[in-house]
């Protein structure tokens, strides 16, 4: 870090995927950058930096958020889940498994956000209709799939969760 650009850092602590982290960061640093660079969990992606594409989605205190729009200071004390916290060791979550089986992931860059959005949707609505799935994922843009196989994946995941 150059001496010419020292941003004032503040202490922040929160839990990511069940693990506590205490670190110092500029208060307005994006949660996205702190997760990727300080905590080195690079599964959370940046697609647009303006809350439009959902590639940076994480679950923060039980709610889906765009981590590019959260200043890290606002995550103080939060419980955060990123894509790395979804599988249990080698065992994929039913949503991940369904994406694998139904072809819900192609290039994979929207996939972490899409999986978290799907988890968040199913958390609130365990049996969504296709239209509810479409609405629940509307903030996660995918350029590869045309979404059909993603809808199939979420529908299958509901089945396998029961």
């Amino acid at each position, binding site marked *: 870090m150059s001496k010419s650009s020292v941003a004032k850092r503040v202490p922040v602590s929160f839990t990511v995927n069940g693990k506590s982290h205490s670190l110092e960061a500029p208060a307005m640093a994006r949660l996205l950058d702190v997760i990727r660079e300080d905590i080195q969990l690079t599964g959370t992606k940046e697609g*647009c930096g303006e809350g439009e594409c959902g590639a940076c989605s994480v679950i923060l205190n039980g709610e889906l958020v765009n981590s590019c729009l959260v200043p890290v200071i606002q995550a103080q004390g939060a419980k955060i889940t990123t894509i790395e916290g979804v599988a249990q060791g080698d065992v*994929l979550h039913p949503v991940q498994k369904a994406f*694998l089986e139904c072809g819900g992931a192609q*290039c994979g860059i929207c996939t972490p956000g899409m999986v978290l959005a799907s988890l968040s949707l199913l958390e609130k609505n365990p049996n969504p209709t296709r239209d509810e799935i479409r609405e629940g994922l*509307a903030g996660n843009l*995918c350029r590869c799939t045309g979404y059909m*196989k993603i809808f199939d994946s979420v529908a299958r995941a509901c089945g396998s969760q029961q």
Partner: protein
Amino acid sequence: MRQTQTVGRSVQRKEGREKLTGQARYVDDLTFPNMLHGVTVRSSIPRGRIKKIHFEHGVPWGEFTIVKASDIQGSNHVALILKDQPFLAEELINHCEEAVVLLAHPDKHLLEKARKLVGIETDPLPPVFTIEEALAGKQIIWGADNVFKAYRVEKGDLDSVWAKADRVIEAEYETGAQEQLYIENNGMIAVANPQDGVTVWGSMQCPYYVHKGLLPLFNLPQEKIRVIQTETGGGFGGKEEYPTLLAGHAALLAWKSGRPVKMIYDRAEDMVATTKRHPSRTRHRTAVSKDGKLIGMEIEFNIDGGAYATLSSVVLSRGTIHSAGPYFCPHVRVISRAVATNSPPHGAFRGFGAPQSLFALERHMDHVARELGLEPDEFRRRNFLREGLTTATSQLIREKVDLSGLLDHALEKSDYHAKRERFARENPGSSVKKGIGFATFLHGGGFTGSGEKTLASVVGVEATPHGQVRVLAASTEIGQGTNTIFSQIAADALKLPYEQLEVAQPDTAHVPNSGPTVASRTVMVVGKLVETAAVALRDLLIGAGLLPAEYSPEQFRQACAGYIEKFGQLRANSQYKQPPNIEWDDEKYQGDAYGAFSWAVYVAEVSVDTVTWETHVDDFVALQEVGRVMNPILAAGQIEGGVAQGIGYALYENVVWKDGRMANGQMTNYIMPTSMDLASIRVFFEENPYSYGPSGAKGIGELPLDGPAPAILNAVENATGLKVRKIPLMPEVLMQEAKRGAHV
């Protein structure tokens, strides 16, 4: 069926698990010790001369690595087809986003500050922004006449038909630019120094294009340049030629600083500065007999190439060849041009010229049918290509093609006739007008004409002593399924389980040049090489007496171990051989343009809300014949994704230009379809194996971009009677048409 057979089955994506767990590493996920970040300072005027570059106070410039054109030791041009585009502008500025200065620093925040402090003083020159202005030639901005490339296709004797024709029907069509909008922006990391040469890691479709581009820039021997593809978050053509420029920039900064340099575009930069689909203008003049036969087609097809030649000549070529579509017409003339304007170069985008010329054609076919008083399906049936007939380039169709059958099936699946009747009955009483329309089209697989022969692609297959087999190719996985399909092909060729196969990371130091990942060639052309290389590897083992003709995976493993012990390495290569009967004349633009075509009929059902003039696609049937379907889920995923991009092209994605610059370069304002906008895309395949494709496969990747736009606009016309001949069909345009009272 053998137990191990995987072709034709929906085996799971090879790298799917890594992608689903966040373990897949994309270029921005990589960090190197001592790494700098790099940014680009761009011109801000569309055309002019650089007078002076100054660096304002506000950052410690001494800490920065600064690269200008004068720092380039090799040749300052991006090696592609022509040598007109510089890596960094030296004197002339030809578009608003031209790279002029590169900066690197360890602190990426400070870099952003520094970027704003570089001033580029210029003397502006008058710019050219449209195809019409370019052709008018008042300002010459490129070559002698602003024309990058022109083609002329002549079949039969067109001039003789006008007098004989019962009707001559003319119309003009227009398509806009389209951003590829892969969700992973362009990015590259470079390590470069005189001892080790240049190595780059990045998001790309074509490692050997980047390799070719870096050679003259650094003037180094081949083996001193190494290009490695990292996991790539979508390409769609947008990472075909552009990454060469970015790799060059990162490498120049790395070379000068002696440290690794990472350059990652943000969305705004990626949208405004990188390539988009070529805007086009097409004029059709069509001679028909009163019984509804095409007797002459005159097509003028022009595309806007932007400031430099890049791939425009090739895009133009594919658009030209596809412009007469899947119809037989004895007399055809196509005159086409790619012209220069002062916007950033337009480039490869899935479909590569064909979506533009097929949009015009398939809208025109509906227009001609109506003028003749024929139903759109009936008019097309009377003119379909079939075995024994010739295309516009006089290519004889040797395969069995049943377009009438495909049309029947597609219209049946979409309930076309009943819906057309019902909508006509119900629309007058509703503010929401429903309509249904279709397009019939073809897409040639692989490089055009003699292109594949020239490429002479090579694929390798190697095995370890444990019987694990690796495919070595430069063809990249960009989401479309290369890793999976190559593994399926090789597994079946070797009679091994899918799990025993893997595909090497494309790295020019380790994989042969299997050509670029473009042109719907990866399965059809490169996949065939995978198959023959795998068979060659098996034959090595059999030939060495280590493997019987019928064997188990365990026997294969033992044979590999034995072979490697004896000979040190087990590897076989395969190089492209042109199938027989392919003759192409590059001068006359006549002959066998493609080894095989894929054929399709797409049907769109739409609702047009006359309160807002917004159009929604309610149902979409995509039916196609693509040879053998290798992996049904992956194949359907390709089609669905392509159709979604096609729906965006038709209805949502409007590049707003302001003085040669994209004014809406944000995902908020350039709107691609969300999950709420895509209701139902139904995909159907019919299989007619192609003799020279692996297991009979043909090209599939680009096909689905060709059909949606004309099918949707045909449906909108069916719904509203409004004859819009331009995409994107934004509601603003449709409302204006309605006001103009352009009803039938």
